[in-house]
């Protein structure tokens, strides 16, 4: 088969008859095999533990699947229509909207403000950065515990009510009344404490990338304080801001831990303030084990998050370079 001319430059079958796995691995050119060894385990795991559940979920969402994962009753879009008609599911979406309206702007402003302050601090910069970043290491469960049982515990001796007392105000039952809905304050401050430091780091990274020459130019033009912020800093942070807004929104959509830990007690969860994930948790894994409706809800949520991400990307220009 092989021409004599090539046999000198390329090894023929006779030169190395047993092409064992070790030989193939030693040769640097069997790239497909090496790619499989490096990337294979990850892709396989992703297929089994991410893709299989997603496909399974979509399939289950078209079946009547109560207490079973191998359903036989095909109901078409029935589960989807039930979910969209279900006032509890719709109210969970409303809860998310209210939560997002509180948490997204406040975290954005606080983390940007902290980043600007820390960035311009001449000394002890690392100390302040560490202090604001430290809550990132804390879990939602631990934060909920401090918020629920120490700061906002609704009795006169709680920290928040003690502070109110200094101003001669009546104590507030923070988590157990819905009118006025003070529980929102508790939910929002807990999450803000936990996540503001993380977004501050992102803003700090953005601030470091702004060229000093832009500030020098602004100084020559006589711009100071707010005008520098308005016309130099904020436009330069546009890409970071877009990413932060998107992350804040997606994370708010997935809120579960603090709602669960702050509002439920002795196995009971109040019907108000159930964000989508808490609702799904009780619908799918509660007593009914209704995987059909739970899966339909999960698919609806996934589509909504994807839509929001796409819309926001389009609207704010995610991924668009500023320069």
């Amino acid at each position, binding site marked *: 088969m092989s021409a004599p001319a090539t046999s000198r430059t390329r090894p023929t079958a006779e030169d190395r008859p047993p092409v064992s796995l070790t030989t193939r691995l*030693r040769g640097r050119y069997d790239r497909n095999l090496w790619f499989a060894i490096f990337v294979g385990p990850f892709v396989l795991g992703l297929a089994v533990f991410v893709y299989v559940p997603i496909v399974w979920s979509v399939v289950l969402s078209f079946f009547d699947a109560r207490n079973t994962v191998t359903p036989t009753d095909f109901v078409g879009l029935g589960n989807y229509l039930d979910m969209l008609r279900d006032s509890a599911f719709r109210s969970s979406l409303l809860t998310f909207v209210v939560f997002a309206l509180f948490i997204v702007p406040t975290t954005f402003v606080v983390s940007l403000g902290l980043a600007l302050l820390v960035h311009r601090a001449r000394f002890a910069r690392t100390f302040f950065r560490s202090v604001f970043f430290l809550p990132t290491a804390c879990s939602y469960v631990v934060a909920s515990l401090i*918020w629920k049982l120490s700061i906002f515990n609704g009795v006169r001796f709680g920290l928040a009510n003690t502070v109110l007392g200094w101003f001669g105000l009546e104590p507030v039952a923070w988590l157990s009344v819905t009118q006025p809905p003070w529980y929102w304050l508790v939910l929002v401050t807990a999450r803000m404490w936990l996540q503001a430091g993380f977004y501050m780091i992102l803003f700090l990274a953005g601030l470091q990338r702004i060229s000093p020459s832009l500030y020098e130019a602004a100084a020559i033009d006589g711009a100071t304080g707010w005008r520098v912020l308005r016309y130099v800093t904020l436009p330069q942070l546009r890409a970071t801001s877009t990413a932060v807004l998107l992350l804040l929104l997606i994370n708010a959509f997935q809120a579960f831990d603090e709602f669960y830990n702050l509002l439920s007690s*002795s*196995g009971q969860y109040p019907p108000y303030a159930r964000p989508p994930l808490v609702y799904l*948790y009780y619908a799918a894994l509660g007593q009914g084990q209704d995987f059909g409706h739970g899966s339909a809800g999960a698919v609806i949520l996934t589509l909504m998050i994807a839509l929001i991400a796409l819309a926001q990307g389009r609207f704010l220009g995610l991924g668009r370079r500023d320069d």
Partner: protein
Amino acid sequence: MAGIQRSSADRTGSVIRYVVLAIGALLFLLPFYLLVRNGLSTEQDITSPSWKLFPSSLQWSNLPDLFRDPTVPMARSLLNSLVISVIQTIGVLVISGLAGYGLARIPFRYANAVFYFILATLLIPAAVTFVPSFVLVSTLGWVSTLRGLIVPGLFQAFATFLFRQYFLGFPRELEEAAQLDGTAYWGTFWRIVVPNSKGFVAAIGTITFIGSWNAFLWPLVIAPDQDAWTVQIALSTFLTAQTINLPQLFIAATIAILPLVVMFVFLQRWIVQGVERSGISE
């Protein structure tokens, strides 16, 4: 900076800035203080009608009492959390590190397709898949086992993505020098690339460890039996229970955050760099 001559307005601004920073820092540290303070108080101190900044006496015995209490599986939960977090961290570093390097450096005809297959999962919010994941893992018979808690968390698309981006920027000259010696991808990766990437590995490692240690929804779903509880589930169970031993709960929570706070103090530089390099703010 442009501080050729600093006006008095500049100085006033700087003072105001530091006052705001100091108040902010105190507010951010206050919850940590409350946690430790309550953990070392008596029940009476915590529920005293007049709120006190300092407890009347430090109750160090709360700590041994917590581990002696048979109704609170604290030692077991801490051990579970430790095992899960350590295995997941090492697993993610190895699995995602290899995959990221392969995607960045080994030319393969369908590498782009594989990369999009991975990227697509980033669009799907992980928490929303908990219902079908529960179904899958319970079908495997892994409910309330360490396997069920560990294995699904080993395949992190975001970590792989970050490793790929990082390895794309790794200096090629270093690898080429090694490959002249006949070292294949495997040897180059472990002997040249990994030892020169300690900082990035440390960053991804700490972020993974924090996420794993603080995970709540998945352990809540998949570990109903006490023996498989993580420390977060144990805390949550007592937090939402009817009768609570307050000092015990607070000292337990203090222990739960201690490993992370210590790790944080030592590895903070790497975490910050990791977050900065994650590319989300570019």
